[in-house]
């Protein structure tokens, strides 16, 4: 970032809040009260969309989770939902299947996040040490994969693991192998699709961040006698911390609710042993029309993710303030 931009926003963000601070320097003097309203006018459309499409539904979700909402309410909007108290939550926690699904979701998501981050960072580091032409090829390959839509990449992997003609079966020397009878293998394929799709974003972002680290910092550490691993641990990682934290929290949020890469891989009809929280909630809502229960499941998911979200938000705010 240009230093002018950095310093300017820095002094914009600082300063005591108050009516007089509500105006940017020098501008408000000419326009007075009208200028004071300008930022609000500018922000209003965005706010309306956010509240309307996300804020209100989120609030509604919580309300729904305390209600009985079924087919009757869908087909007859006048038939109000009935208040169910904690019944939906009680059903969730006393349901053995929920705990199975939860455990499975945590394991699968953890595998996806860890693999994506480790491979992503390793690829970014590799990009730094290969010759220019190789780096160009790597960037090309990653960007190519990055751009492939999720349903498309999932179908690609489904075809590559096809029972009769899957090329992966051929390459591994296991002809006529069914990857989906055992859900561990099936989830391994799902994980491969997710990691394949997530690594480009992580690798390219981390590589861009690595390129922003000032050379003199690393050289100074070298001059002081630090070895390469030491430079990496003591200089590079701390500087990358914010971006790594952001990428991994986002990965947790995305992978914890993974949907497409399981749903499409199982031909839009996953069996129960492929249910994760996201899919379970979907099935409850759209197949069983049990919207109250499904909403309670979604609320539980959000609560489980809350810790990660707090970390992410703090990071975002810190970045906002640093500028």
């Amino acid at each position: 970032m240009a230093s002018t931009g950095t310093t300017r926003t820095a002094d914009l963000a600082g300063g005591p809040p108050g009516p007089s601070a509500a105006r940017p320097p020098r501008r408000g003097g000419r326009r007075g009260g009208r200028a004071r309203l300008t930022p609000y006018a500018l922000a209003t459309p965005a706010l309306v969309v956010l509240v309307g499409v996300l804020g209100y539904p989120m609030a509604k979700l919580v309300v729904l989770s305390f209600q009985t909402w079924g087919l009757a309410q869908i087909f007859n909007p006048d038939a109000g939902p009935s208040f169910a108290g904690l019944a939906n939550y009680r059903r969730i926690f006393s349901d053995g299947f929920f705990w199975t699904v939860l455990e499975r979701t945590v394991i699968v998501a953890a595998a996806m996040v860890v693999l994506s981050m480790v491979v992503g960072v390793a690829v970014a580091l590799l990009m730094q040490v290969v010759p220019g032409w190789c780096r160009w090829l790597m960037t090309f390959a990653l960007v190519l994969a990055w751009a492939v839509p999720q349903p498309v990449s999932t179908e690609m992997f489904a075809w590559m693991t096809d029972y009769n003609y899957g090329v992966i079966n051929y390459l591994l020397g296991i002809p006529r192998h069914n990857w989906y009878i055992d859900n561990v293998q099936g989830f391994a394929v799902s994980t491969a699709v997710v990691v394949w799709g997530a690594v480009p974003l992580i690798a390219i972002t981390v590589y861009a961040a690595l390129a922003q680290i000032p050379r003199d910092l690393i050289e100074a550490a070298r001059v002081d006698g630090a070895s390469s691993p030491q430079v990496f641990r003591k200089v590079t990682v701390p500087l990358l911390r914010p971006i790594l934290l952001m990428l991994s929290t986002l990965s947790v949020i995305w992978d914890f609710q993974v949907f497409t890469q399981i749903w499409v891989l199982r031909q839009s009809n996953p069996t129960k042993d492929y249910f994760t929280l996201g899919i379970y909630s979907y099935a409850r809502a759209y197949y069983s029309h049990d919207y109250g229960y499904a909403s309670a499941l979604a609320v539980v998911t959000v609560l489980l993710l809350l810790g990660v979200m707090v970390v992410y938000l703090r990071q975002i705010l810190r970045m906002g303030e640093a500028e």
Partner: protein
Amino acid sequence: MSRGRLRTLVWTVCGLAVVVVWVFPVYWMANTAFKPGKDMQTVTPQFWPHHPSVANFRIVVTDPVFWRALRNSAIVTGLTVVAAMVVAFLAALAIARFRFHGRKAFVFAVMIVQMVPLNAVVIPLFLMFNRARLTDTVPGLVLAYLAFAMPFAVWTLRGFLANIPVELEEAAMVDGCGRFSAFIRIVLPLVLPGLVATSVYTMILAWNEFMLTYFLISSPGNYTLPLWLTHFTLGEGTEYGPLMAGSTLIAVPVVAFFMAVQRRVAGGLTAGAVKG
């Protein structure tokens, strides 16, 4: 010297392995798409199409639902991009150029959206849209995409705007430009790359979106391309030839646009991430 060269060689081989892993699935998709049905079903897979044919593509383009879906995708994507750019640009302007009460809360609200679990919103959104008769409609999709595309757009545009010194604008105003013409002549050209990058990002998001669409759209007349693609599998057994041809057709525009702007998109994400 030779030890250094050996090391470079090892890294290069690793780098090429990465290239293979990330290109191969895409290559395999295209390779399959150009094979006639018989050649897909060989014991030893053909690593390039021995008898290249466009028969699979012909199946795709003769499917009327494909054309409907293409039209819907184009309309939804176009509308989402235009709406997102206008709304996000205004919001970014507010954040980058003004300090006002609630600025921080506003930034916070925008960023929180980035991590709202889709699963959590989709049920109430479905019920809400259902009541407003927006489910299974194109405008409903645009509204939903808009909300999810905005945080990134606001964040990126804010970065671009913050980099344009206010002094430039003021100098133009001193030289006799009005506020509006200073904006048109100075700010807009400078922020244009940011607008291009964000609109391509939004475009890709809208073009690729699957889960929300899957929840909100039910009739084939309103399918978008990803939805059309996954319903392709629901017949008797999966027809991978046409499926891969369809996948290729969907991916090509995205890949092309993405290649064109990826540098800026990645830059927007990391802007301000590392402080030297």
